[in-house]
């Protein structure tokens, strides 16, 4: 049962020589082999490389050279590039793509000696909230295989929940780490925009994309954040602020903190009453632990999804213009250069990617730029201001991660707008660039996980982890 361990437990076992990294890696690979046909969490499994890396890690441990992640197996969302390893982003336009470069955060993780198990399924280039927009098949929720795992990092969350890896590295633009973590019953953290490098991440919306961990515990998330955070010369939007001791922050007492409950999150989007009750129970716990609870208002919350679905497709349509079938990836057979572009893109993108590129192209096209993109960016300022106002009187906000638990496969695919509304609780923090974590908060009567979200002020990761860990470990 080695594959069920957390990072902290695995570290202890490896350091005490209770088991080797090869044994731990074999346990995870065995679990993947046993479960991948059904759950479909991995697109590419790097078995041989993993065993090689594990063997090397065992050597390092024997020499006393182990660091925090030496010998610990992990998976990476396929929209994040790993040098020399096929990275499709969940779309066949990159079916044969082997990146010549590597995401900075992945290099940081691998320099610690972590063992790469493979690349995880996701909605193509992060476009989705259910993982049904992958061209490599839907991922199934390990807690109930008739349900979606959430998205877009559905494979990364499902793999952690199903113990196929010890942790995952994923990407969150508008909720793609938190929402699937919530639906699969694991921990997922989106950092402040600019806290972690985006270099090597296939871009969705450059002003919102972030890379963060999906883990089994909040302390594990803190360990990963401490390793991957920091300024990167290859990403000009990273900030130089020193990286705090996040693992220490997890241990801090939360008494005396003021927690805001944003009323709009409970009145909009038809929140399942079971979820409201679950969150209320956790709020009571916070009071018992000495926190002051305060109701706050973020009046522009209801516009977040509308803003999101202009800003993201607009940036996205520009970013994905690079995938043209000319320099890398799949090239459709065509007579002219125009047809090479349009057929490669038509064949290599799924419906949802085409739809979002079209939304963005329209919003940015002549005559509509002011009405849509500019307007959305102004309302985005109002959403940010709501958070700034709230954080002037509270230390953090508590909300559900999603208005409903995992829904049935195919249930929302016919109506894209209904699917977009699944992001109503997670997209506001993304637009404001503030950090947030989703932690498991019990189950519905149907046995499906409920996610609780803690949102903090910009660069307030320590507070988010502190509150998250206190609730997680109670």
């Amino acid at each position, binding site marked *: 049962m080695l594959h069920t361990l957390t990072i902290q437990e695995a570290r202890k076992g490896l350091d005490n020589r209770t088991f080797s990294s090869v044994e731990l890696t074999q346990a995870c690979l065995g679990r993947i082999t046993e479960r991948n046909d059904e759950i479909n969490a991995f697109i590419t499994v790097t078995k041989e490389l993993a065993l090689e890396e594990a063997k090397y890690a065992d050597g390092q441990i024997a020499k006393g050279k182990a660091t925090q992640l030496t010998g610990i197996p992990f998976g990476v969302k396929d929209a994040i590039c790993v040098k020399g390893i096929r990275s499709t982003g969940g779309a066949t336009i990159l079916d044969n793509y082997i990146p010549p470069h590597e995401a900075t955060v992945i290099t940081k993780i691998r320099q610690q000696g972590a063992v790469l198990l493979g690349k995880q399924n996701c909605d193509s280039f992060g476009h989705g909230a259910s993982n049904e927009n992958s061209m490599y098949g839907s991922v199934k929720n390990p807690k109930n295989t008739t349900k979606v795992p959430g998205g877009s990092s559905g494979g990364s969350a499902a793999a952690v929940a199903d113990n196929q890896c010890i942790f995952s590295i994923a990407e969150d633009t508008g909720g793609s780490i938190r929402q699937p973590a919530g639906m699969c019953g694991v921990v997922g953290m989106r950092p402040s925009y600019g806290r972690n490098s985006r270099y090597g991440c296939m871009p969705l919306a450059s002003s919102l994309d972030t890379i963060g961990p999906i883990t089994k515990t909040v302390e594990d998330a803190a360990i990963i954040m401490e390793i991957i955070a920091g300024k990167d010369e290859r990403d000009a939007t990273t900030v130089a602020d020193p990286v705090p001791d996040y693992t220490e922050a997890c241990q801090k007492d939360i008494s005396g903190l003021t927690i805001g409950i944003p009323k709009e999150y409970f009145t909009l989007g038809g929140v399942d009453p079971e979820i409201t009750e679950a969150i209320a129970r956790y709020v009571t716990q916070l009071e018992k632990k000495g926190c002051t609870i305060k109701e706050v208002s973020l009046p*522009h919350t209801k516009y977040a999804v*509308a803003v999101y679905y202009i800003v993201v497709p607009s940036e996205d349509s520009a970013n994905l213009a690079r995938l043209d079938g000319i*320099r890398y990836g799949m*090239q459709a057979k065509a007579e002219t250069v125009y047809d090479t572009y349009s057929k490669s893109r038509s064949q290599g*993108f799924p419906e949802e990617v085409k739809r979002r590129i*079209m939304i963005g192209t329209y919003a940015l096209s002549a005559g509509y730029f002011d009405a849509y993109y500019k307007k959305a960016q*102004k309302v985005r*300022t109002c959403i*940010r201001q709501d958070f700034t106002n709230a954080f002037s009187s509270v230390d953090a906000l508590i909300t559900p991660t999603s208005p409903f638990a995992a829904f049935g496969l195919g249930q929302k695919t016919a109506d894209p707008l209904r699917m977009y509304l699944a992001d109503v609780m997670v997209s506001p923090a993304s637009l404001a660039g503030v950090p947030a974590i989703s932690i498991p908060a019990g189950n519905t009567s149907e046995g499906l996980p409920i996610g609780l979200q803690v949102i903090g002020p910009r660069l307030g990761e320590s507070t988010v982890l502190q509150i998250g860990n206190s609730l997680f470990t109670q």
Partner: protein
Amino acid sequence: MAISIQDVEHIADLARIHIEDDQKEQYATQLSNIFSYIDQLQEVDTSSVEETCQVTGLEDVVREDVAKDADEAQKKAICDQFPQKSENLLVVPEIFSKK
């Protein structure tokens, strides 16, 4: 906001995405629904609000403008990704065609 089939054709052309004829109506309906939802943004008074172009507050991030040479292995890794090549050169479709 209603998006017509002609709009879909125009957008698909701008975006260089080939759309089959029998899919155009579906895209028109879906995009119309999405833009109708987005139109609620018009009710927010933003007359005195600046746009958010970034959230970090960083300004004028600069670096030395120096070329870094890639080693042979890196060059090979890049060239290996070319869909069509002639030695180490990328072969592209004819650009000045009449079509």
